[in-house]
């Protein structure tokens, strides 16, 4: 065989006998990624004076409220599977403090409440974890506001408004998503029909 013919044969060989390993693109149907985002939440520090009204009378409960639009984002709403709420609390008060966290919808109706967080007086290293499975608590996705109430134990003894001891609340959440790469039938058909190997 002459040299050009050899070259021709070699090139034809590569062109017509090129191979590829079978690939399974349907695996993408099973691909699920589960990102976990950590986000700082609320924090506050209160002192005894904040439990006294302008008349100097002690109130055993104070509360504050914030709008919350996190669940209005469709990406979060559609893919959220679990929220782990974590809090670290330092209670220097001489009495028990209870934290109530309520999730409210647009009508101010409670759609989800945490287990009351009860911190005995003098506990400086209290930790709290509330795990919320979205599948079991879908109403929480209707949340538009969050209210946090701080109640002090009624010990019959009034706190000293000049007392500098603090109640410190810090929190964060781990937001767990579960996202399927392929969600709709169209993509599925594209993969199976065209690239089944």
């Amino acid at each position, binding site marked *: 065989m002459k*040299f050009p013919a050899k*070259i021709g044969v070699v090139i034809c060989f590569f062109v017509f006998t090129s191979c*590829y390993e079978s690939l399974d693109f349907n*695996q993408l149907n099973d691909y699920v990624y589960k990102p976990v985002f950590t986000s700082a*939440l609320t924090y506050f520090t209160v002192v005894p004076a904040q439990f006294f009204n302008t008349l100097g009378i002690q109130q055993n409960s104070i509360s504050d409220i914030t709008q919350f639009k996190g669940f209005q984002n469709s990406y979060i709403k559609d893919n959220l599977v679990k929220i782990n709420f974590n809090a670290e609390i330092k209670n220097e008060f001489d009495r028990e403090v209870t934290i109530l966290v309520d999730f409210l919808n647009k009508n101010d109706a409670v759609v989800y409440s945490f287990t009351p967080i009860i911190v005995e007086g003098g506990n400086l290293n209290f930790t709290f974890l509330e795990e919320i499975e979205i599948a079991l608590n879908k109403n929480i996705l209707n949340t538009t506001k969050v209210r946090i109430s701080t109640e002090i134990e009624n010990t019959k003894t009034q706190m000293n408004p000049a007392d500098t001891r603090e109640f410190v609340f810090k929190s964060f959440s781990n937001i767990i998503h579960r996202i399927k790469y392929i969600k709709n039938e169209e993509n599925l058909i594209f993969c199976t029909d065209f*690239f089944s190997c």
Partner: protein
Amino acid sequence: MKKILFFVLIFSAVKFSAQNKQVLYDFAELPQTLLLNPGAETNYKFHFGLPLMSGLSIDLGSSGAVLTDVFAYDNINIDNKISTLLNNLTTTDFVKFNSQIEVLNGGFRTNTKTYISFGFYNEIDAISYYPKDFFILFSEGNNPHLNKSFSASQLLYKFDVLGVIHAGVSRKINDKLTAGGRFKIYSSALNIESSNNTGTFTTVLGTDNIYKHYFSNININARSSGLFNEDEVIEDSDTYVNNTFFGGNLGIGFDFGATYHINQQLEFSGSVLDLGFINHKKNIKNTTAKGNFIFEGVEFQYDPNNPINYWGQIDSNFRKQLPTAENQESYISWRPVKLNASLKYSFGEIRSKICYDNTYKDFYTDAIGVQLYSIFRPLSPQLALTGFYQKSITHKIHTKVTYMIDDFSYANIGAGLSAQFGKVNLYGMLDNILEYRNLSSANSISLQVGFNVIFN
């Protein structure tokens, strides 16, 4: 059919950079070599390429990842495969695609020393570096990566669809030196690019709260032209095709090159290609985000006399401190400049071939040499070093084998053949032929084919 579909998949799955045509460079005096070196020597009266068939080239590659990494039948959980792939990727890994189709190509000799060539081709050129931090953030979240700074600088991509009208001149200065230049008018149909981004997102332990999030020195830009018309995505493919020929986004560029015979057997050639830019001013949509933002959570005040809209306050601060904006400002995109250099030593049997002026020119049947190729990419220049062996079987049949080292492989073997049947010239070349045993695991493949009609 399956193979065709397989290639279609690669084109669609791999994000779409001009290519190294190491086999075609300085090969067999093909008209297409003038596009790689306008100072290349030619030896014919005139030529024309068969419209749409004179030059088709495709080059695609992916460093750091191949299809089998994810899609092989290996009974490994795909979540684990993708996780492993993401961990193995580096910030310099990239995917690229380049395709050129010559619509028109021709040339003629004005005198014994000067050859004019011209034409029009369409090109798709794309490169994207893997934004590893983005992939990790969106697939794993920030929770497993506290204290890690997710960098926006890894967001680096460029995608061009354009038409190029060109005319060049190759002139023999003396017996040793041939020099040439080419003028190009670019017409961009589509440009999408993002580069020179800065900024990081970091979650660290806080002071007032448990964690604190930092968006630091954010300066992200994404530019596009030809994609949107008044906020609507242009879906009509004809619009893109039409815009490759004197659309609204025009630019100019130059190629320069030379061939120098150091002695009868030793030859040096080199070229600079696509020294130019495109001024994008039609159907522009640019998006920017710039600033710093620190978030440590919502601090409740428990002040019933001064209720605070905490969420509104944070939202307002975020928009103020890290504003995103859109604009329609024109911008310039630079073409990826390419450099070629080659040193060739000819040897073997001396043969004669008839020239355009009915004289005879001696040539050696064999040649070996080295070629250096570099293309300037957004992150850094990419280099390829090629060793080659050329063999002229007859004065009408030429072959070339190359061995190249580049970003994708240390053993890229290519081969090319040019044959002339009467006036019709046929050429074809491909590289990375070792990978043809299993294209699924190939990091890169490229090929060029075409037909010319050449008159001596």
